[in-house]
């Protein structure tokens, strides 16, 4: 077995293990830390696919910003005290049903989808590099890219408006 294939299997094992630990661990903080580990292993997969930019952005955006906020909120909420009533059998069964349904849907979609066959002669190692990605985003897909940025801007302005203190409101 060549090194990159064995590394792929090792990474996949780690990914699935840490993803399972996210839902199996009892402490929410542990869940978040396992989720961060999952993002790291996913970045490893991106690097194996020669998509360095995607790997770095995955770390910066998900592990570096979003998960910090997750951890932040969970630390404030301190869920440890009221975890007894949250762990009833009904919630477990409901969770299992929802998760199982999502799994079946994803698996069905995977079975139905047609993956174009891989041709080693057509392979271009530069395709995942940031230069070609930039060419693609700013030339071929410029309109979707700009629309997505406007969507994000609108969401940001909305969040600021919601969080804004109104006139006459108390200053804590």
């Amino acid at each position, binding site marked *: 077995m060549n090194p990159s294939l064995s590394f792929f299997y090792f990474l996949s094992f780690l990914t699935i293990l840490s993803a399972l630990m996210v839902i199996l661990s009892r402490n929410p903080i542990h869940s978040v830390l396992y989720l961060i580990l999952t993002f790291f292993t996913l970045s490893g997969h991106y690097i194996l696919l020669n998509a360095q930019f995607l790997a*770095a952005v995955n*770390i*910066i955006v998900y592990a*570096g*910003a979003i998960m*910090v*906020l997750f951890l932040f909120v969970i*630390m404030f909420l301190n869920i440890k005290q009221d975890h007894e009533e949250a762990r009833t059998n009904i919630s477990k069964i409901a969770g299992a049903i929802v998760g199982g349904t999502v799994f079946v849907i994803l698996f069905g979609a995977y079975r139905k989808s047609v993956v174009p066959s891989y041709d080693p002669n057509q392979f271009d190692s530069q395709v995942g590099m940031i230069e070609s990605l930039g060419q693609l985003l700013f030339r071929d897909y410029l309109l979707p890219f700009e629309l997505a940025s406007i969507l994000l801007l609108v969401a940001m302005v909305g969040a600021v408006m919601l969080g804004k203190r109104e006139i006459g409101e108390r200053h804590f």
Partner: protein
Amino acid sequence: MELTEFVIKTITIFVVFVLTLVIAMYSTWGERKVAGFIQDRMGPNRAGPGGLLQPLADAGKMFFKEDFIPALANKWLFIAGPSLAMLTALLASAVIPFGSTFKWDGHEVVLQGVESNIGILYVFGVVALGVYGIMVGGWASNNKFSLLGAIRAASQNISYEVAMGLSLIAILMMSSSLSLGEIVSQQHGGNWNIFYQPLGFIIFITCSFAECNRVPFDLPECETELVGGYHTEYGSMKLGFYLFAEYINMFVSSAIISVLYFGGYNYPGMDWVYNQLTAALGSETGHNVATLIGTAVFFGKALFFIFFYMWVRWTIPRFRYDQLMNLGWKKLIPLAIFNIIITGAATLFLKPLITAWLN
């Protein structure tokens, strides 16, 4: 990779690692010497000549103290906190170009841990992870003051990362490359980015003060409000790791500042020195000596910025927390966006005008 290249690369990485640790170690000595100088006292002067052995004495003390874990702390995360802080601090130095190339036996090896075309994004990612060590450790201590310190560190780092990233974008627009090696080699011949990006530099250095949790932004360990901040419950070498990670972060950010804005290993008149050396010592040895001089210049710049960090620490008082947030969100981010617009306009309109005028 050829064996010779591999050996040179291994030696480079090892030397970089050791140098990072030694510089961080002697920064603790330098900090106290600078503090002594600014406050008109002697600083450490008992252990060794000029107190030079003081870091070793401190390390010995840290190692032999009792390794204590509080009863209600989360044991594994309590240990993971300082380890994570140390790990993320050391990771960033992998992509810093410490010098140009080293020639040996016909091979030419770059004096850089990893030559990556996403270098600056990698540094940014590692910096973004730096907060986990503090957050995990602060939460695992099971102490209100530690938790408050950790939360402060997290919100501060996230806030200042935004402005830092935006100030970097102006640099990337000018260099049109994310590779640190490429950014440095473009600044060859006095084309240092500081002359083109003074505003971006001020934003970047302010944000790096905040990211390193240094005074005036050391709110996470503000002792008048939070006892000791996130490391209140820590002792022994675990505390040592936290403090040490801060000094490593300081060195790494100084190195990044000198790479991005002050030309890295470039210095005025380096072409003349290079020609003299290669003429006197032959093309291979001369090239290597010139590279070493460039590396020494690079470390000189980085050490100056470490000194600058200390200088600021003993000059400026600490901000209040709302002042910190207002500065980050209401001043630095709009300034950084303004800087991006100015840079874009200048590259589009001003640069063709000037080049047309010069020709």
